[in-house]
């Protein structure tokens, strides 16, 4: 009795440490995304290097966490909610790592634009708004994971469709600009890729939230319209 209690509390500690690692990785991704947005609005290309370096750390953490997950499954053979947590985590880290990659893409796109000249100011507000929305989604998805709060997770999933709509309207606006003045095409293409990356970050945040619902309720809501009741 005593022995098994001791073992299980050690196991709980392992799980809690694993969660903290995931959230730390999430913290790195959050800073990456917000630094990328800052670089976009201020044009400080120096931070691009930091973002790329952070990405290396994120990648390392992803590998380490995956390793830990495999260890826990092999050693502890978790069941029920513990198993779901471990499985969920191994998917969440993939999404976080990809969100980090998208942040890197944004940073590189920003560098390209500023190196070729000026950032056209008319796109600034729209893109920044989109990016803030995506960043909020990432933050709230991670909060939902920390608190295992399915209500907040559901909200993030809902917010994704707003980000998608906004993304589409930015693309429409850019297409109009390109048709009016073909000289803007080079920059516009870069801006499209930035907007696309932001939209993808939103998608990854949504995936993380879906995993939170899976971890807590055991319900797989990917690719379903179950939430939008």
């Amino acid at each position, binding site marked *: 009795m005593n022995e098994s209690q001791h073992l299980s509390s050690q196991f709980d500690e392992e799980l*809690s440490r694993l*969660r*903290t690692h995931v*959230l*730390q990785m*999430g*913290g*790195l991704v*959050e*800073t990456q995304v*917000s630094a990328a947005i800052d670089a976009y*609005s201020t044009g400080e290309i120096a931070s691009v290097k930091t973002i790329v370096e*952070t990405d290396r750390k994120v990648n390392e953490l992803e590998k380490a966490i995956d390793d830990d997950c495999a260890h826990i499954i092999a050693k502890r053979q978790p069941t029920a909610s513990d198993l779901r947590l471990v499985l969920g985590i191994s998917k969440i880290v993939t999404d976080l790592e990809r969100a980090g990659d998208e942040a890197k893409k944004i940073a590189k796109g920003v560098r390209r634009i500023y190196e070729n000249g000026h950032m056209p*100011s*008319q796109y*600034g*507000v729209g893109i920044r708004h989109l990016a803030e929305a995506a960043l909020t989604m990432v*933050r709230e998805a*991670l*909060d939902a994971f*920390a*608190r295992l*709060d399915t209500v907040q997770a559901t909200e993030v999933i809902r917010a994704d469709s707003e980000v998608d709509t906004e993304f589409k309207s930015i693309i429409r606006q850019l297409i109009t600009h390109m048709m009016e003045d073909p000289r803007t095409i080079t920059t516009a293409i870069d801006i499209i890729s930035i907007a696309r990356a932001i939209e993808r970050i939103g998608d990854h945040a949504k995936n993380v939230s879906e995993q939170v619902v899976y971890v807590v309720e055991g319900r797989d809501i990917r690719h379903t319209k179950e939430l939008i009741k």
Partner: protein
Amino acid sequence: MTAQVIRALLLALLSIVVALPVGHFYAPWAGWVVFCGGLGLQMLFHFRNFARLDRWSRAPVVDSSLEGEGAWDGIFGRLYRHEKDLRAQIARRDAEIAMLIAAGQALTDGVVLLDNQNQILFCNTTAEMQLGLVVKTDRGQPVVNLVRQPEFVAYLTDEDFSRPLTLRSDRNEDRVLSIYVIPYAGDRRLMQIKDVTQTDRLDRMRRDFVANVSHELRTPLTVLAGFLETLQEIEVDREEQARYLAMMSEQSLRMQSIVQDLLTLSSIESAPPPDNEPVDMVNMIDKLRRDAEALSAGRHTVVVETDGQGDLRGSEPELVSAFANLVSNAVRYTPPGGTIRISWRASSQGAEFAVQDTGIGIDPKHIPRLTERFYRVDRGRSRDAGGTGLGLAIVKHSLSRHQAQLDIKSTPGLGSRFAARFPASRVAGI
């Protein structure tokens, strides 16, 4: 205690005294029955009290008092008093703890208590707002799970708390927090969080101001020095010389206007409060319109919107210079063909002077810093337009001396609206 024993023995003796004659005269078994009956009665009495105690101990309540019979009464009374004292003590402690927590809540600094695993034990409302925590659900959660900024995580794990950590909050835009970690009670930690946004801003403004003044003055000075050197070292013909001198005088005029603006600013800052004389607004608006048209030279449409009601109370020169500044900004930052709208409205609640343009507009992120000295949205453009970077700082100062607010609304590409709102006390003739 001994009294109880003697009493029990006496009762037993009494049973014997009654039982002996019964056993002797009637039948021995009857004697035994009487004796056992006597003892049984005694046992029954004790058992009843025991049952009472048993019932009470399962749910000790102090409002219905615990009463026993005979020897049990004393014991019950002591137990009851003990329970009551304990409860009063607990209630007192509870009140004390509640008071301490209330004091913690009342602090304007954020406070978070952490255990040895950095898990949250307590945090006050200020900390909840600063860090985005919810104490109800987050108790027991490692704080780094929710405050995930890498600088913070590193600070907490490095365990070097000799200096506070300055953290730009990612949840509340632009809040700057200064975090102190103080170990207490062995391995627990107290996190004290101060909001230093204002101090940080002032520091930055002061740094920027000195750097900007030197920069702004150095640029024309470099040009001047360069030309002087050229004129001293190289023979140049008359025409060239005249051109150089023209440029030099242009630069010295620039320096002069910067110094002039700085002096204006410092004189406004140290001047006594503005007087209360009524200023004729109809006249002033008309003059502003003429100035705008002169500056625009027919490239813009200038529209005046006013019903001619109400005047302002204050210092005329300061108000004229502030309003003229807003109007000339509007002309300078509006491409040809645009419209400048000057409006004046007064009522018994207050008055508003506004200048609206269809110019290039200002990105929202610049608006809060627009009235800082030498703050420039676009360095090149502003200097080409002949600005010193002090205009809006002077406007804001003059207006705030008249208790007026400067309200700036702008959409990039569509235009801006600068409005000065005066309180009722500054309005005359309504």
